[in-house]
């Protein structure tokens, strides 16, 4: 009488799925065997024994397709199959488990924690003996690459190592941004100080209370736990300091500035704007999507931000044919006698890039492999692609891309099968120019830049007599030795790391209050903020930064 229908049907499905899993498993096994035997069969010399290098990459990327053109070339010519695992979820969690388990891939992307865990091996001898090209590539950065804990080199910085001429055409870093339309209406004035800028915005907002039928938002800002910089970094630039993150550095001594006078002056200006009704009321409540949506509507006249943080909004504006509402970056300062320091020279991306783990079977082979890839021909292949397929060469030997090729490059599906982006992003690479004068990657190629310039962009540049967006800024001076301080890592769970969190919390909590207070209450709310900082062990944070700055000055100057 009893009915087991429910269980029965379940078991049936179970049996079916077992069969399916079985099938799939078999398919895979067969595939693998096929490729392995195919490989070893094709191999002749013992020197290039095919190997598989496993890699863990700390950024999230999509797995390239199995028949990816570039990875296939690497495999065919260098005998190396790359087996990459990309991060999903939280990096610290992943590394914690990896370290606790003590099981590593052959190569892994940089994190100071791994040095502490002795998971990675020193590279300097390997490079000296087996990798002349890498040695040359990193020559200028060699001392900087040494770990401050024991003086060994563990990581091969992936970016910031320049060769030849640096051709920057756009500014992707911090700036005060203003709509091209606002500049145009005012007759393209030269803006130098925050006052100039705010006056321009005020005038425009009064004349145009609405844009496309919606209320104009003269100025906005953005702050969230993961992105504090649009709110808290502006003062250091206004005061003429470079981007050192949470600190300004005078004579090699770093000081936290968020609660100091240079910040107060900026927030006072924002407070005034707010009380005039010119600061976005929802600035501190909006989420990132809402922030981008606002910028994309074309009714935000200006903000302080880094270009890459809102580039999606720029694209959306262009797609709507509102190019006149896209932004120009201006290096504002408090007073006209201050020299702007928004642009900096790139520095080797320390503690980043690949390291070789203690579990790697053949470190020599790995370093030789990376050494081959840093040669010019391979760099061209990785950055530009294959000649005639991915780019063309004109009669002067300059590389360029056709419209069709450019569109291909924007197609994520195509890229998975035809580019080695995920690996290249972490690998040692050339930046600047090749020996034949071409830019290391298409984005830096002057021809490529002008090709994609829109009429409204040309109009702005012509009005100011500039050829590129970077000319709005003072050229980057030689970096201070220690620069940049934001790159200094805080040790896990240390008082400095905790103080950093607490400072961020205090800024997120009190700065909105300060800025949105009534004008006569500005002083008292500002004092609340300063008092909140007094309760934090700011000194622990500054001490860590200063100790590292000193270390850098000692160890990096005698280069």
């Amino acid at each position, binding site marked *: 009488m009893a009915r087991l229908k429910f269980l029965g049907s379940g078991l049936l499905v179970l049996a079916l799925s077992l069969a399916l899993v079985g099938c799939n498993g078999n398919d895979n096994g067969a595939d693998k065997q096929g490729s392995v035997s195919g490989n070893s069969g094709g191999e002749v010399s013992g020197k290039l024994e095919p190997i598989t290098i496993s890699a863990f990459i700390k950024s999230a990327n999509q797995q390239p397709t199995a028949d990816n053109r570039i990875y296939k070339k690497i495999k065919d010519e260098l005998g190396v199959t790359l087996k990459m695992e990309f991060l999903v979820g*939280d990096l*610290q*969690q992943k*590394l*914690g*488990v990896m*370290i*606790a388990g003590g099981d590593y891939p052959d190569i892994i992307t940089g994190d100071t*924690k791994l040095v*502490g*865990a*002795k998971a990675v091996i020193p590279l300097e001898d390997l490079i000296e003996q087996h990798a002349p090209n890498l040695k040359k590539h990193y020559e200028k950065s060699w001392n900087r690459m040494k770990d401050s804990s024991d003086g060994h080199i563990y990581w091969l910085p992936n970016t910031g190592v320049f060769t030849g001429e640096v051709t920057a055409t756009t500014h992707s870093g911090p700036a005060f941004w203003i709509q091209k339309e606002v500049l145009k209406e005012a007759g393209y004035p030269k803006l130098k100080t925050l006052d100039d800028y705010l006056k321009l915005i005020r005038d425009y907002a009064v004349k145009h209370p609405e844009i496309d039928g*919606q209320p104009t938002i003269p100025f906005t800002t953005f*702050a*969230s*736990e993961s992105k504090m910089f649009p709110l808290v970094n502006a003062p250091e630039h206004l005061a003429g300091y470079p981007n050192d993150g949470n600190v300004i550095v005078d004579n090699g001594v770093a000081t936290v500035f968020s609660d100091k006078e240079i910040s107060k002056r900026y927030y006072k200006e924002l407070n005034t704007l707010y009380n005039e009704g010119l600061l976005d*009321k*929802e600035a*501190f*409540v*909006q*989420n990132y*999507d*809402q922030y981008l949506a606002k910028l994309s509507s074309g009714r935000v006249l200006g903000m302080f931000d880094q270009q890459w943080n809102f580039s999606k909004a720029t694209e959306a504006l262009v797609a709507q044919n509102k190019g006149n509402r896209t932004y120009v970056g201006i290096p504002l300062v408090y007073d006209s006698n201050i020299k702007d320091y928004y642009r900096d020279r790139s520095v080797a991306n320390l503690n980043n890039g690949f390291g070789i783990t203690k579990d790697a079977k053949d470190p020599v082979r790995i370093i030789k492999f990376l050494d081959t890839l840093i040669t010019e021909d391979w760099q061209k292949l990785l950055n530009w692609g294959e000649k005639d397929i991915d780019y063309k060469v004109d009669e002067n030997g300059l590389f360029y891309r056709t419209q069709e090729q450019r569109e291909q490059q924007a197609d994520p599906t195509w890229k998975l099968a035809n580019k080695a982006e995920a690996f290249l992003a972490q690998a040692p690479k050339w930046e600047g120019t090749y020996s034949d004068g071409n830019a290391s990657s298409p984005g830096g190629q002057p021809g490529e830049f002008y090709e994609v310039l829109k009429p409204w962009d040309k109009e702005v540049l012509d009005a100011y007599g500039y050829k590129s967006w970077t000319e709005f800024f003072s050229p980057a001076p030689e970096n201070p030795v220690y620069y940049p301080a934001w790159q200094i890592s805080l040790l*896990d*769970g240390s008082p400095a*790391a*905790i103080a950093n*969190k607490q400072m961020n*919390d205090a*800024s*997120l*909590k*009190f*700065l*909105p*209050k300060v800025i949105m207070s009534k004008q006569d209450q500005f002083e008292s709310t500002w004092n609340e903020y300063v008092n909140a900082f007094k*309760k934090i062990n700011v000194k622990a944070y500054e001490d860590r930064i200063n100790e590292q700055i000193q270390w850098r000055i000692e160890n990096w100057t005698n280069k």
Partner: protein
Amino acid sequence: MADISMATQPEKDAFFFHSRPSLLKRMSGQKQLILMSLPVLAYVLLFSYYPIWGWSMAFQDYTPIKDFTEQTWVGFKHFKFLFSDSVFLTVLRNTLAMSFINMMLGFVTSIILALLLNEVKVKWFKRSIQTISYLPHFLSWIIVTGIVANVLTVDNGILNVVLMKLGFIDEPIMWLSNPKYFWAIVGASHVWKDLGWGTIIYLAAITSIDPSLYEAADIDGANRYQKMWNITLPGIKSIIVILLIMNLGWILNAGFEVQYLLGNGVVVDWSQTIDIFVLKYGLQVGNYSLATAAGIFKTVVSIVMIAGANAISKRLGEERLV
């Protein structure tokens, strides 16, 4: 027959082998029950209890870099950090409040929906509503909070538009920057997301009610509401009580995603929960020890809560957990 002093807690004493002969005899008659449950118990011990050695981390400055034997022991340092931080009380209050609001709103709305669904006689309609109402459960919090933020925005947010059209307010309300609305917004978001999902269990429980009870009530001339109140509700009372007790054990788990995604600097004193605090000062800075200490604290609170709730329920003669 049994010792009088032991008669008050017969089961417990039996377990501790005080009355050996009768226990062995009872066990031999329950061979099948033992076979059915003991392997499962062994499984639970292995997968849930054995790893508890990890709690020792709470008393160390644990770092995965070193072996377990090489860790530095620091006593109650992390507990002290947790409890002595000035925001701890605020965070505890927010956690308790939001957890309680979410739980109560969740229970009441799900039960009401289950009762009302039970009154829908058209089968396809009932099933469609069930299926549709459980859809939001499958959306991640980031999607749901994205929609919530857009509904509440000052700029043409639908809630402000409707309230203004109806004349309730003169100018848009800044819902997300006013601390006094935050708990309500979180509660409402939870209801929205999990209303339909929550009813499933009650709908299943309703099926166990003997239909003859309704027939008898019909004969007595009971109306719809009397039947709901006197038959359906008592029929699912045991599951309601059990779920309530179990959920009380999670009173310190108000979650972190919603609060993290909807919160902002302006309302942080009302939005931050224990989990967010631990995430920030524990996991995000690689401090596993603090996270473990917080976990132990939560476990202690859970045990006190369920033991208390279970005892009260027992005294009231209701269903209980143990």
